[in-house]
């Protein structure tokens, strides 16, 4: 039996969390969600998802801090991350890519279906 793909969505806007979670579940994926940076890090260590979808502006901190702390932890450092944000800031994008993010995507550029396709491409 093929292992179920797992994804962790770190996003504090519940409307968007529900939307993306619905779409990934429709693909047959196991979806975990976290509404804050710290909860995201905790779940990453506990569940070790196959991939993480990370927002940048979180209510308890910055997504960049999440990436920095994840990188420092050898247990979870290698889990791929795709940053998905509406913050179009070149400096933040540069920092995120330097910290090992697979890609920095603007939310309004992608429908959930297009996002699923993008995320799948990083798992191949």
């Amino acid at each position, binding site marked *: 039996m093929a292992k179920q793909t797992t994804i962790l969505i770190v996003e504090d806007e519940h409307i968007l969390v529900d939307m993306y979670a619905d779409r990934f579940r429709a693909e047959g994926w196991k979806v975990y969600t976290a509404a804050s940076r710290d909860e995201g890090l905790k779940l990453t260590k506990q569940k070790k998802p196959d991939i993480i979808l990370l927002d940048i502006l979180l209510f308890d901190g910055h997504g960049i801090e999440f990436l920095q702390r994840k990188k420092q932890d050898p247990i979870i450092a290698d889990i791929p991350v795709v940053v998905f944000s*509406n913050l179009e800031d070149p400096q933040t994008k540069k920092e995120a890519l330097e910290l090992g993010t697979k890609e920095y995507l603007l939310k309004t550029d992608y429908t959930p279906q297009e996002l699923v396709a993008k995320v799948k491409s990083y798992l191949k």
Partner: protein
Amino acid sequence: MLFDSVIYILLVVNALLGVAVLFRDSKQKVNQLFAGFVILVNLWIFSNFLENEPDIVGVERLGLFLRLDFALALFVFLLWFYFCKTFVQLSHSPFFDFVLGRTLLFLSGALALLSLLGSFILTDITFQDNIIAFKQGVLWPMYALLLLILTLGGLFYLLWGRIQTKQEKHILKQQQIELILLGFLLSAGNAVFINLFLQTFYTITLEISRFGLYGMTFLVGFTAYAVIRKRLLGIRIILTQLLVAVIGILLLINVFSSENSLEYTWKTFLLVTFLVAGYLLIKSVLNEIKQKEELQQTYKKLKELDEAKSEFVSIASHQLRTPLTAIKGYISMLLEGTYGKLSAKQEKPIDNIYESNERLIHLVNDLLNISRIESGRIKVEWQKAKLQEVVQSVIDELQIKTKEKKLKLSLEKPILLPSFNMDPAKIRNIVLNIIDNAIRYTAEGSITVTLSAQPENRNLPTTSALIKIQDTGEGMGQQELQHLFESFSRGRTGTKMWTEGAGLGLYIAKQFVNMHKGRIWAKSAGKGKGSTFFVQIPVQ
């Protein structure tokens, strides 16, 4: 008697300046150090005065006051050193500061004690011909060296502070340091002139030689002014005022030296003319300084407003995009059937909502881009890319839209240009805006895109790439062509056709082309005869 009065006046003036500084803010360490410095300077000046006054202190005590003079000099310059260091706010590591402070204090204290109690600094003290004299003791070089280190150390901190404040554009602090430096130079210059130059080449009286030390009042005065005043006038205006005052005083003295009424009248006329000219000069310099300060204030406010605007636009764009993302996402999932199949009747209106939402997203993107372009916050992200791939991706994206309008969109005679440095995202944006424009203003027919290398002669190296986008649309008149790339310009055709769009796309395209040091222009044979857009990008 006159000379004796001078010292008492100076002591009072110095004391008042010290009190004024302390009164301004007694909790500030700088102010406390300055007050201490002034107290020591006064004690030093008075001690220096008394060492040659046997009638006041008695002959047997002259030597004591001489030793006190030399001991106090060390503490005066020790406090000068600390004052300068504290004023410019230069601190090293706590350990270094501790060691430096304790070492200098120890050395100063030790040498001051030796000056007071032994013959290591001063020896063979005598009072002859109404002047006290001495010979240099065995530790005199060490004394002189420490004094030099403390003096130059303080000067070093001031000069360092002057450089730092100039780099960081702290105008007030810079002016304060300049004033203190000016006071130092005047004091030092005065001392060197009187005690070195005049005493070496001329015979001067004791009273005149004392003025070498009295010049410390320059340092006290300028430093007090620098510390007290919130707004400083700047050295140039102060020197101008000083110069006018000095010349005015000399001219006044000259008036009183007149020998007859004609000379008196003429010299008075000269004095009055000079004072009027001096007043006008100072007033014009003050006005210039005031205008400069106002400009600097305005610039500062504009910069703050610009940063606030950028931050607002960034936050507003982010906040606007969040609900737009939700609408886009849910609508697309409804259309996709994630929540169950839609009826044919439901599909069309929901599709319209999706399209309207996409327009809103593009508008937000365009407004954000314009804000960034106008505040200079957009940068080119150079990377090697193939122009054909960038253009093809735009054509692929817009095929659905052109098919809906039954238009033909194609890339004709594609040529393989080598990869060259560009910002692919911005080039994509340029091509997308032009083709999107063409789709809007073309009711029927086609939109043809061609790429070519410039110059066309293949034997010559390629210097630029040319993108040509030709449509069979409404065309434009000369008037429209002139204003085409301005923001919020849609022309009459745009208004007539009730075309969507705010007229920002071509303006943004032009800005992006400019960032690549390229050219963008358009041609049209007239109304109803289509348009052709050209984008030339240098190949680097």
